[in-house]
């Protein structure tokens, strides 16, 4: 039926507005490298990379609510797999990318399975995965196989899409990342909308007990979501490694990367499709904006980190769900809901300080 009339889906003003915005954004993203000088194409690549990173974190973190910092390990795995396999042993970069994805997915599956089997709650999941990431960084720093403290530098001579490498013009990286982002976004959107697995994830997040009583295999689906999420995060790691041509535990296994993914998704709207992408691009724009004020590059990342933190604190403090929920509410206010008005909801009494305990 969608084939018969694709416009049928655009039945509310919100959907129509979003369709227009997405179309314009995609067209702009496609022509962007032709409008700006090469360094700005690099900025565009970084923006898309942030978007990709946030988006993939959001699959487990936002939809299922697993506040995981083990995605740092996935990001690092992607970077190190291309560094070890391609730079050292001349394996094709795409094979290295797939290897990184598979390793990360297996690690994610096992972590999630372990955590559910032992009944670890959300807070200890965050703490445990953080400990795991720090352990991974420690191992990478003392293991020559992963370049210990020196890191691994790019060596190779071949260029082009087949080798996932472009020396001067970053637009190859830009379009590859854009391609990944578009394909992954469409894939995840379809998964969330059309499959039992995808549709079950919000139920697992909201209440695992009720989810289980609806026939949802909670533990299995959590683990699969984590595997998918971490596996795809690894792609971002591979891309950034190829772009900067050096990988070390300090550049790809830092807690800041994990926090940036988590906080970026939350700023955009955890569990929304577009939120993490919008927030990722927004942060890249902010970084570039600060740079244009002749702030030293070390301080640029400091200021963006502070900005990240302040924004997310304010969002959580005032209980809004991030950029996307605000946007949806705004569009609905301007254009209406396009549905018959239904009976107004009875206000639920909100208990004050009912239970301050941590779950």
């Amino acid at each position, binding site marked *: 039926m969608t084939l018969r009339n694709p416009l049928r889906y655009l039945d509310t003003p919100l959907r129509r507005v979003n369709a227009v915005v997405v179309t314009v954004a995609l067209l702009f993203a496609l022509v962007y490298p032709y409008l700006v000088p090469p360094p700005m194409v690099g900025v565009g690549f970084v923006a898309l990379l942030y978007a990709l990173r946030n988006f993939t974190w959001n699959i487990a*973190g*936002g939809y*299922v*609510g*697993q*506040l995981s910092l083990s995605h740092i390990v996935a990001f690092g795995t992607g970077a190190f797999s291309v560094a070890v396999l391609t730079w050292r042993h001349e394996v094709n970069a795409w094979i290295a990318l797939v290897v990184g994805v598979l390793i990360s997915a297996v690690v994610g599956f096992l972590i999630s399975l*372990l*955590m*559910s089997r*032992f*009944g*670890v*709650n*959300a*807070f*200890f*999941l*965050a703490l*445990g995965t953080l*400990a*795991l990431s*720090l*352990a*991974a*960084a*420690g*191992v990478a720093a*003392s293991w020559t196989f992963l370049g210990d*403290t020196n890191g691994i530098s790019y060596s190779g001579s071949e260029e082009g899409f087949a080798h996932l490498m472009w020396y001067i013009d970053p637009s190859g990286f830009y379009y590859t990342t854009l391609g990944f982002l578009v394909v992954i976004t469409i894939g995840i959107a379809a998964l969330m909308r059309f499959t039992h697995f995808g549709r079950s994830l919000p139920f697992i*997040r*909201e209440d*695992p007990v009720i989810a289980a009583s609806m026939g949802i295999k909670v533990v299995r689906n*959590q683990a699969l979501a984590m595997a998918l999420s971490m596996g795809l995060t690894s792609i971002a790691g591979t891309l950034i490694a190829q772009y900067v041509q050096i990988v070390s535990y300090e550049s790809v296994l830092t*807690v800041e990367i994990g926090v940036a993914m988590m*906080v970026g998704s*939350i700023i955009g709207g*955890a569990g929304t499709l577009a939120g993490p992408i919008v927030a990722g691009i927004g942060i890249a724009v902010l970084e570039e904006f600060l740079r244009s004020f002749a702030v030293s590059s*070390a*301080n640029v990342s*400091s*200021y963006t*980190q*502070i900005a*990240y*933190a*302040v924004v*997310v*604190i304010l969002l*959580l*403090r005032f*209980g809004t*769900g991030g950029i996307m929920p605000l946007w949806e509410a705004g569009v609905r206010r301007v254009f209406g809901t396009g549905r018959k008005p239904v009976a107004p909801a009875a206000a639920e009494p*909100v208990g*004050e*300080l009912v*239970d*301050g*305990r*941590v*779950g």
Partner: protein
Amino acid sequence: MSTVLQLASTGLLQGLIYSLIGIGLYLVFTVMRVVNFAHGYFVLIGMYGVLSLEPKGFFPFLGAVVVAALGGALVGYLVQRLLLESGLAKGGHSQLVITLSLGIAIQYLFQVLHPEPFETIPNPYPFEAFTSSGVTISAPRMAAGVLSLVLVLAVSFLVYRTRIGTIIRGCSESLNGAIHVGINVRRVYRLTFALGCGLAAVAGGLLLPIQPVSPALGLELTIKAFIVVVIGGAGSLWGTVAAGVLLGLAEALGSLYAPGTFATALVYGLFFLVILVRPQGLVVRAASRIKPAETSTKVGVG
């Protein structure tokens, strides 16, 4: 042998500082059940606070530590009052992200203010190193260990022997009960949080002459504080103290057998296992074993 003895005594004294940092978090996390991922960054506030006051001599140093502690407590009070309090009814997830972000903000604020890593101050104490049977301990390390022990004892007195302590423990036992008997729960939470942060800042001040400060230290100390609190368990404050000393000793003696980064990786790996197997801690008092461990898989953002 003397190397082992040397490392053991340094480890013990370092462990006492970890205990002090740990009981600050114990009050916040185990007793009040507020997640504070910024705890190590309050240690950082203490370190940079003392550093920027540039104390010359013993008494100015002590004064600087007190000022830094009050500063840390004030920041803690404001954080609880302005940021976390409204999230109390909502549970831990927003607290987790808020305090994690707060920590990052503090770290990079110091990064901008103090771009130079590994800053420190000269020995502020009026005596030099102690040497006995082949073991040499520097004055700041000795003093920091001893002062930490004194503060740990003072806090345990406060928690177990005073009315304030009774109120704090009462809120921990039953929040609704505390509300029913007319305790101003919000104020108790604010003050306990401030106390926990103040203790972290004191520990930071004492740590400064031994350990040069960099902004990245905050995260490491946060994790160590959680290691101490989680391994110490929910039983009593003494479990936390014991876990602190244990961590100090393990770190010091571990450096004998493994290179630095690998040893820390091992500690984190072990900690991961502890979280899996026993989130309620290893050093558990018999009494607290009766309570069934409530495990839940409920997760979500905010």
